């Protein structure tokens, strides 16, 4: 009887310790798809932690940033730029893990890269040889389509707005490929994934003129109101998601991401991105 009572007290104490966490993410796709993709991950965390994880998809980055700042969310999925900016803004923000992905090159990496590519038939073999050509970025908010290519240009002491005859903004990476294929531009900045997709689609018709440093993939962070021990526990659970876990399949099914789970890296892993914030801002607005 005494034993039964002790066991009951233990269970009661455990249930009293269970918490409800809010897990927020940014709208990288339509909210319904994001919810479908992340729900298995929430279920995994809830099951493994004994806590309850509630998914929140914010309206935009700004809302996500505000909610992290005001600590109305406990965990968040943020992209690289936002992680760097948030970390500068909220030093107490705690890095947990970095998203892992099967890259098109066949490796599982927590990063990707930006390429400056040209059409082979344009006979451009180096970045310097692209002077006076037409060039396209994706858009100025893009990490791999603008920020990292700008680091590349800086390294080569190139101001793209004067180096090239004209610089266009095409919003999406695959549009840069299509513009290259249509010979509207001779050079463009794209992510490595876009490059490998184009390779599959159009064959070996592109020359890589320059490659960026690794661009860290998205990070999962914890608000400072989550105890350190608790955040480490959750980070550990994320690191140990099996490759064939339903959450990975859901990412691929609903978002097309070839997810391979998460890996814990150092916070300094994201320092390379800080350089992009220091790249000279060549305003085209006059």
């Amino acid at each position: 009887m005494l034993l039964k009572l002790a066991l009951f007290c233990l269970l009661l104490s455990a249930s009293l310790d269970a918490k409800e966490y809010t897990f927020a993410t940014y709208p990288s796709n339509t909210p319904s798809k994001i919810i479908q993709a992340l729900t298995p991950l929430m279920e995994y965390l809830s099951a493994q932690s004994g806590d309850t994880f509630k998914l929140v998809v914010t309206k935009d980055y700004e809302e996500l940033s505000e909610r992290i700042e005001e600590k109305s969310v406990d965990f968040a999925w943020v992209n690289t730029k936002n992680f760097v900016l948030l970390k500068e803004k909220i030093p107490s923000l705690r890095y947990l893990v970095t998203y892992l992905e099967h890259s098109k090159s066949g490796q599982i990496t927590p990063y990707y890269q930006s390429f400056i590519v040209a059409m082979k038939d344009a006979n451009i073999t180096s970045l310097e040889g692209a002077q006076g050509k037409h060039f396209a970025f994706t858009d100025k908010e893009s990490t791999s389509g603008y920020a990292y290519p700008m680091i590349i240009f800086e390294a080569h002491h190139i101001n793209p707005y004067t180096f090239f005859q004209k610089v266009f903004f095409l919003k999406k990476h695959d549009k840069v490929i299509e513009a290259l294929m249509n010979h509207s531009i001779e050079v463009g900045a794209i992510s490595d994934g876009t490059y490998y997709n184009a390779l599959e689609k159009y064959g070996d018709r592109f020359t890589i003129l320059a490659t960026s440093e690794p661009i860290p993939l998205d990070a999962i962070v914890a608000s400072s109101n989550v105890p350190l021990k608790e955040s480490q526990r959750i980070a550990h659970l994320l690191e140990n998601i099996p490759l064939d876990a339903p959450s990975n399949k859901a990412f691929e099914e609903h978002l097309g991401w070839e997810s391979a789970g998460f890996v814990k890296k150092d916070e300094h892993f994201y320092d390379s991105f800080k350089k992009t914030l220091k790249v000279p801002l060549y305003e085209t607005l006059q």
Partner: protein
Amino acid sequence: MKLYNKILFLTIMQLVAIFLFGIYQIQSLYLTQKTAFDQKNLIQSDMIQKRFEEKLESLQKTAQILINSQEVITGIISNDTDMLYNWSKLFLSSSTDKIHFVDLQGTVISRGESEFRFADDVSKRFYVQQALQNDTFIGIDLIDDEECLVYAKRVKQYGQKPIGVISVALIIDDALLASLVQGTTMNIAYHSEHQTLSTTKDQKLINASSLHVMLQAGSIKEASFNIGLTSEEELSALKEARTNFFVGIGLALIILVLALHFILLKHLREYKALAQVLIDFYEDRLDIKEVMSTIKQATKERITPEAKKIAEALFNMSQKVADTQNALELLSSTDQLTSLSNRRKLEECLEQKLKESERGSFFSIVMIDIDRFKTINDTYGHEIGDHVLIHTARLMRESIRTSDMLGRWGGEEFLLILPQTSLEGALIIAEQMRSKIHHFSFEHYPQRVTMSFGVSTHHVGDTPNSILRRADNALYRAKNSGRNRVDHED
């Protein structure tokens, strides 16, 4: 005027009147339709003109909306191809085929109609130069190798600083031309130094007129829009109907006149033939029997019922005339008492026989006289005398052949003409006749009646008098020889 001419004239007059009335009616209808047709074409021309102006206005409006967008301004300044594309594609429609954003250097930043085609140089294009120099160009120019209606306007930041050019264009193609004339019977043709388009295969337009469009002179030379009809099909149908009517009624008129001519000829021929018979009768070319046979023949032929009735009536009338003529002839040639031929008839017959003898025939005559007839009259009265005359005549008639002619020559004297009879034959007949009368017993005359006969036969060169004289001489001799006997010429 002849009946034929009268009928023909009146009928032709009526037909001509109908024909003229028909011409007047069809001509009035044609003129009404022509007026309506011209009115309709005028309305349609105005409609096409308006549609064309609407197309130009639509281009201007589209350009103006885009120019007023701050995002478009930003997109041009920042070379945001994607944003400009997304904006411009919203405005592409059947009235807007091309929207191009061009920077001040003449480089295309974005094409609404082709997402991945940009960055080419169009600075040499006439419309770009015009827009950059004069703020606006509206006209026809080549855009991407296609002739277009172009509205190009300089884009200014804050309404002051030029940052580029927007061109909104509509391709001049068959679809545009078709949309302009849709629902009308008109056709439109576009002609320039490079191409000729038309909504009809038949390039030639009837009553063609140019569209009155306020377009600036572009790089395309001799560009013009012409509207008109490929065929005046509606009017042609009416014209054809009018011609057909005229030809038809003309032919009908000719056919009717010919038909009338032949019908009249046919009918009048029958009447004319009947009339000719009467004329021939009147002019002694036909006797009444020939008239009757001719009319009878006519009634047996195919003849109209009306003419047949007339022919029958004429036939009946001729029949009556013939009967009357026969009766008169009989009356004029018959002795009323004895019913024998009279002296006139006998003379005619004798003349006839003499004529026939010239062709080889021959005849004899017998002059007969009742012996002492004056005594009978004086003794028994004229009634008995007549009784004796009647019965002796009957007895003599019964003794002769049908070809013979017996007549009363005068008083109690008779003449018998015997065709194809020789003197001997005549003597025999005379003798038989004498004997028969001699032995006949009269009902009212108690005594025997005798007769004397003088016979003569025809000689070449005889005249009526000569042969009669010889017979009379023979009769004289018979009388002198004791009467009741037959004597002949020497």
